[in-house]
């Protein structure tokens, strides 16, 4: 069983797990959007990114698709991760401001401002509907067409599909078009009506009291000021 370190916590986990399985197991909350337990892995929304160590550097990977490996060192809530996650959510909300799922996520991770012009689209191309149609409903009635800025999810040739049984699985699973957030101010791009507490993040510098993990900087993810002073 590979041993991995998540935010300073060591766990032995089965080799077939992904990082997200491991973090769920120990109760660390990573926001996800295109991930669903009953469907195949996609890794498209990039909200579940975590930072892993690679040589002397770190890199971002999507935790829902990345398999655990021996000695993997993971930070799920470093400043860099939170910043990147906010930017990705900002991009998604600017695309589709009316999704309640996205607005709730924004409240949860503390997104306060959208700097892009809203597009007021209805789809965020997370691919959940395509996957549920193919994998659970065995219908294969919808799919992606085109690419880049012309990407669309639709039936073949944009016509009524004979394969579609009107089961509504796609609508059931959609995080964007089904649950609408009208918000306190319908005209504002960001709602923040359900604002609750901020997700804690790691500190770049270690202080005695502020380590939310209660580890006093022992996990090695932040710079220990005191240790540096001693060296000086």
């Amino acid at each position, binding site marked *: 069983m590979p041993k991995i370190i998540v935010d300073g916590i060591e766990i032995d986990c089965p080799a077939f797990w992904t990082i997200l399985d491991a973090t769920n197991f120990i109760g660390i909350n990573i926001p996800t959007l295109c991930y669903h337990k009953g469907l195949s892995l996609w890794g498209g929304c990039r909200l579940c990114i975590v930072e892993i160590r690679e040589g002397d550097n770190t890199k971002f990977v999507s935790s829902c698709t990345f398999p655990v490996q021996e000695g993997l060192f993971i930070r799920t809530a470093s400043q860099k991760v939170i910043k990147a996650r906010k930017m*990705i959510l900002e991009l998604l909300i600017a695309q589709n401001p009316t999704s309640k799922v996205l607005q709730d996520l924004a409240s949860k991770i503390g997104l306060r401002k959208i700097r892009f012009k809203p597009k007021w689209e209805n789809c*965020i191309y997370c691919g959940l509907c395509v996957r549920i149609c193919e994998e659970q409903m065995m219908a294969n009635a919808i799919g992606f067409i085109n690419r880049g800025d012309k990407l669309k999810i639709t039936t073949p040739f944009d016509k009524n599909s004979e394969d579609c049984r009107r089961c509504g699985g796609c609508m059931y699973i959609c995080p964007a078009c089904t649950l609408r957030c009208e918000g306190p101010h319908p005209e504002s791009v960001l709602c923040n009506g359900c604002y609750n507490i901020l997700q804690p993040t790691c500190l770049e510098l270690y202080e005695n009291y502020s380590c939310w993990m209660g580890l006093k900087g022992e996990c090695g993810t932040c710079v220990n000021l005191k240790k540096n002073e001693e060296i000086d």
Partner: protein
Amino acid sequence: MIKLHSINEYEELSKKFNGSKNSNTHIISISSGTCGHASGSIELEEALKQAVKGYEDQIGLKSTGCHGFCAAEPNVIILPEKIFYKNLKPEDAPYIIQSILNGEILDNLVINENGIKYPYIHEIPFYKLQRRILTASNIVIDPQNIEDYIAIGGYKGLIKALRMQPKEIIEEIKKSGLRGRGGAGFPTGIKWEIASNQKSDIKFIICNADEGDPGAYMDRNLLEANPQLIIEGMIIGAYAIGANRGWVYVRDEYPLAVKTITINVNNAREMGFLGKNILNSGFDFDIEITRGAGAFVCGEETALIHSIEGKRGNPSQRPPFPAEKGLFGKPTNINNVETWANIPKIIEKGAKWYANIGTERSKGTKIFSLVGNVKNTGLVEVPMGITIDEVVFDIGSGALNGKKIKAIQTGGPSGGCIPLEHFHLPIDYESLKKAGSIMGSGGMIVMDEDTCMVDFARYFINFLQGESCGKCSSCREGTQRMFEILTDITEGKADEESIELLEELAYIIKATSLCGLGQTAPNPVLSTLKYFREEYIAHIKDKKCPAGVCRALLTYKINPENCTGCGVCKINCPEGAIIGEPKQPHIIDQNKCIKCGFCQDNCKFDSIICEI
């Protein structure tokens, strides 16, 4: 065509080819790749065929792949003297035939640089400074004819490889220091070792010929001019890895390349180089051709695999790497066209010979397509470690029309630009990366002072936002937003916060994207921001485009001294922005002007001034 059943039979055949000299004393080799066709080589060939009638015993014609010198297309090389004639027209054909019969050189058709004439190919500066290992034989091979390839010693590498153990071949490739030519520069030997160590009965190899970078065409050139070299490389690779099936994934926008590689795979099969029990070695291998539908992202290996499987060309997360779980779930080794083409040469001449070329960490030669605002455009094959200066100024002969060169873009849309002051840098994987660009597949676009760097970045981001597969949100939305911000900047609508937002967005797209396309997509923005930030600021603060490219930031004015009041500009203005009485100097209403420039084009008195 005879089928070869053993190595001995091959050796007899190659001896026969070497012994029998061509019956013609002279051969005219016509550069007839796609680029040649576009500039009229088909008409030239017809004219030469007509002109050569009656002299067939002395002069033979050979239609070969591209000779590499695109600025001189259509061109011919007279063999065996190697006289190079450039920019030919069908009318020149009789003169060429006559000159060969008389043993003369036509002075008006040879390369002329700064008043000096260079009739022979080895004297021309464009060719002289190159080291042509892969492309040198292009001028003597008829790409439809496998015998031409065997006559120049083709398949010697395969014969040598079949006498070696697979492990020895991999060791040899590792020793040679060959790195992937597709862009990332992963050591080929190590890649092969990983694939060969996989425990699986079925393994596959793929040749990635989905070359999509704007302004890069070295893979097409190899496919069109010397396809047997690639096939030989693939057979050696398959033998080393233990694969029995291979694919060539070639984009359908290269019709001539698809045609040539298909004919050549069939020829190789007929000759016995592909199929069951190759040359009695007990090794089976065959190649299939898959045509790509033109998505840039399908050059990414996981997307390419999905595309061959018949699925949508979306990349997926690595690990698992294709070497572990690739095509149809089996270990798969993917290499670029140019990487495969290097293999036969390495095996034939030895790793030591190959490792002598290049720098410490980047070995061998690399083909670059030198395009843009440079005099000698074309494909240049240079040893690694040559400086950008040498490529642009010595081989490329500097800028067109005496302009000043400003920067060079390497690595296609995913690469970055390198400004003139860094042209002393050697071309290898590490130093280009350090300068904020990448080697990429080898596109080199030279830009002169008339290029606006913001507009340039916008062009590439526009390409990428259309070519992103759309799977991951950071790449799909991120590139679209970068394009939006860059468009705002070029139209003078952006504020100072835009640069910060653009930079922040670029770094996050780079870090969080799923595949190589997204991870390198912000490079054009980041490198121009690094070296040409002042141009961005000029667009935003002063609302001026220093290069005079961004139309929205130009101001058109009428010089009252020159204006005769003829009214032509008034008639041609689509917005009705020009006001004035007949025979009186006119004025442009700046609020209505859309800067289309019609007035300037139509003014006979040069009275319309465009202010930058």
